[in-house]
């Protein structure tokens, strides 16, 4: 430890070496079998259970919990994977308090839901630990589908297509598959290289050829893909980021939060990753929280998250915000950045307090400045690199209920399309559903 949290400026190694391992390990360790049995015992096996309705992938939650109760977590995992092949990651990253656990009747009864997320993790991890893939492919159909983007939507789509007997080429621009699972979420949610392990396990189904370092547009066009495949699925996510629109917002020390998180995720020795003494994160979503919390975990002394609207409008869940507060992140709401002050390096960010006005947010006239060695911008991502030939719905690709785009033979899902609040679990559902739609289309009625 050459530095400390109070070392001025941007510095690496602010912590003891052993602190890094502890800080970035699993936020919650997996249940042991006893804990799983105690937690599973609390499930009432509700009729037409609200937790299932609340799950975007509609996992039969009471069934899988009953299978844990009955001593077969592997069977429980199969129940989960039947609906959500990325059930392992979703168990870690889903905002369960607003989904399944928020709908749990024991939340209504006692304010303490069945811990569905942790039970799902227990089940899926038990099966993944066997490193055996529980699915076998249907007879080959002779069809070949291009899936662009190896994130949650693309992986889910590719797996389901392979399951149905189609051959899939999975194109991805990055060095590693996994998309945001690999690059875009906090390390402590996917500790021990879980994202890579999950993808490797998923690909065991066979029939999926991974083509990495391939970028849509640069390495091939949509038309090229259509010409060489029977169908195309686009799960290209949101590659662009919104800018603040302020002078000096690219001053040294200021960067996009997604880049910071991606770099952190790909850094083996986190003591080499520099972090500011004073860090300001602008934004109110999950990305902002992940950047802010991990800044603290790297040893930043002061981390402030600033959001232009009220707490109720923040994209991050209460659970995430409480976690951030627990980790020492200061959260300021109703304040928007109005100036970045830099003198070569970044020095301060100036904010104006806001209140809702007739034409949107209006400054109250009161301003304040926060010291900032680093600023992470997390004010939203945008569609980038999507073929212009596809119709848009707002700022995203337009798709129907089955994921069909405006172009016949082309489907899309995940964050590049609307309606999912950019959740991993929604992307998985959309990828899966698009695969079924592609399958029906390719095989005709009765497929």
């Amino acid at each position: 430890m050459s530095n400390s949290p109070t070392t001025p400026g941007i510095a690496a190694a602010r912590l003891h070496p052993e602190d890094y391992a502890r800080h970035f390990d699993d936020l919650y360790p997996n249940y042991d079998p006893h804990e799983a049995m105690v937690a599973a015992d609390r499930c009432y096996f509700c009729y037409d259970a609200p937790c299932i309705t609340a799950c975007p992938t509609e996992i039969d939650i009471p069934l899988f919990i009953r299978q844990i109760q009955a001593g077969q977590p592997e069977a429980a995992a199969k129940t989960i994977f039947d609906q959500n092949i990325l059930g392992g990651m979703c168990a870690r990253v889903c905002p369960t308090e607003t989904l399944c656990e928020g709908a749990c009747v024991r939340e209504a009864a006692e304010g303490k839901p069945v811990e569905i997320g942790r039970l799902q993790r227990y089940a899926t991890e038990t099966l993944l630990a066997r490193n055996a893939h529980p699915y076998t492919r249907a007879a080959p159909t002779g069809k070949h589908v291009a899936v662009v983007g190896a994130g949650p939507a693309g992986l889910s789509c590719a797996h389901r297509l392979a399951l149905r007997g189609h051959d899939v080429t999975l194109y991805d621009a990055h060095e590693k598959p996994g998309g945001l699972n690999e690059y875009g979420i906090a390390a402590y949610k996917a500790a021990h290289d879980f994202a890579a392990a999950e993808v490797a396990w998923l690909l065991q189904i066979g029939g999926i050829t991974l083509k990495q370092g391939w970028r849509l547009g640069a390495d091939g066009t949509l038309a090229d893909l259509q010409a060489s495949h029977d169908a195309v699925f686009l799960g290209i996510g949101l590659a662009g980021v919104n800018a603040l629109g302020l002078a000096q917002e690219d001053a040294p020390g200021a960067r996009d939060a997604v880049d910071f998180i991606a770099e952190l995720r790909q850094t083996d020795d986190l003591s080499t990753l520099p972090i500011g003494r004073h860090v300001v994160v602008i934004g109110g979503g999950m990305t902002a929280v992940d950047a802010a919390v991990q800044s603290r975990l790297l040893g930043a002394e002061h981390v402030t998250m600033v959001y232009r609207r009220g707490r109720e409008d923040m994209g991050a869940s209460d659970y995430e915000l409480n976690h951030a507060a627990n980790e020492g992140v200061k959260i300021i709401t109703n304040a928007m950045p109005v100036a970045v002050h830099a003198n070569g390096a970044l020095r301060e960010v100036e904010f104006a307090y806001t209140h809702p006005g007739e034409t949107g947010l209006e400054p109250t006239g009161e301003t304040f400045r926060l010291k900032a060695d680093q600023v992470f911008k997390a004010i939203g991502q945008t569609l980038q690199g999507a073929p212009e030939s596809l119709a848009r719905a707002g700022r995203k690709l337009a798709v129907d209920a089955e994921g069909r785009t405006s172009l016949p033979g082309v489907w899309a899902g995940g964050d590049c399309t609307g309606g999912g609040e950019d959740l991993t679990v929604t992307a998985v559902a959309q990828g899966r559903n698009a695969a079924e739609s592609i399958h029906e289309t390719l095989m005709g009625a009765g497929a």
Partner: protein
Amino acid sequence: MANLTTNFIGIKSPNPYWLASAPPTDKEYNVVRAYKAGWGGVVWKTLGSEGPPVVNVNGSRYGAVWGADRRLLGLNNIELITDRPLEVNLREIKQVKRDWPDRALVVSLMVPCDEESWKAILKHVEDTEADGVELNFGCPHGMSERGMGAAVGQVPEYIEMVTRWVKQHSRMPCIVKLTPNIADIRKPAEAAKRGGADAVSLINTINSITSVNLDTFSPEPMIDGKGAHGGYCGPAVKPIALNMVAEIARSAETRDLPISGIGGVTTWRDAAEFLALGAGNVQVCTAAMTYGFGIIKELTAGLSQYMDDKGFTSVDQLVGRAVPNVTDWQYLNLNYVAKAKINQDLCISCGRCYAACEDTSHQAISMSPDRKFEVIDAECVACNLCVNVCPVQDCITMEALPKGATDLRTGEKVGDYANWTTHPNNPMAKAAE
């Protein structure tokens, strides 16, 4: 503060809770600690004849059935009677009775089915100045293969014969402990009474296999790959015990025979139920084995508070109060009409009542798109299944219709008491007078 003192067939104890003859009462060390904890009495674990004591298995003696959160609901055992030398037990019994004169101390006995064996053991027990004896005609495992325990308890003539010997050769109060592994519990109770028993105690344990190991295919508890049926007890057997106690309490032949109630007593409430069904006291075993002797504080304080709440000043006032309400099905009022009612404030919308009613009962609960569950009075037969499966206590209740109200299911008005014996559908019905 209600007076919990009981006088059961002349045996006084400061409260109606005795520890049943079982592993917790096998030696002075345990019994003294039980008395210190506050137990009113003890039935010392069954003594056998003089000579080499029995031997027990050296593997698992107990098997179990669990509920949610691994709460022990049923316990099974293949332990035999005491495996300590007779003289050691007798010496300790004498000492304990001398040290604890205000507590009940009854000695359980099981010797071969001949008069001399019983005469001999009774002499020894009288010398200890114990308060009475309990004849173990109930143990269903091991000893029954040797012609003792349940082997006697399943033959009323043997019960009568042995009880008579005991009353002939001893002036001690005699309790006959009955096995439930029999078709009609009234028969052994009548036999005990004919033999001169002062009381019966029931139930002893029920023949059982708690589970099967699906890897080794051996029953549990397992001894070297094999298993033998054991005796089942604990909360799971309470309903069986309550019925058997009630049968004896309401039978014309045995209604004056004192009963010591045994079977799954876990809280004060269980004890109060046994007392209400005619037991003069209760014996406890599994709860003490599960939670230790400390539960006696809840058992006594709970019963005392309940009695105060009800205005009962002595245990006698509670004993048998529910017996007149135990009847035969044919006398149940067929004009009693109730309907389930769901308290929407308490409902947590789990839908278990709906599933149960749809799949089992009369499709009498409706479910709205926003998960509101309501009873359809025109379909509800008041079966109570919804109440039983609801996880929230008192969320669903059964509400009786007042006389004269219309039952929406049948369209008929609620009438006066009428039962099956006079029902027009009954081919054996007698015309109403």
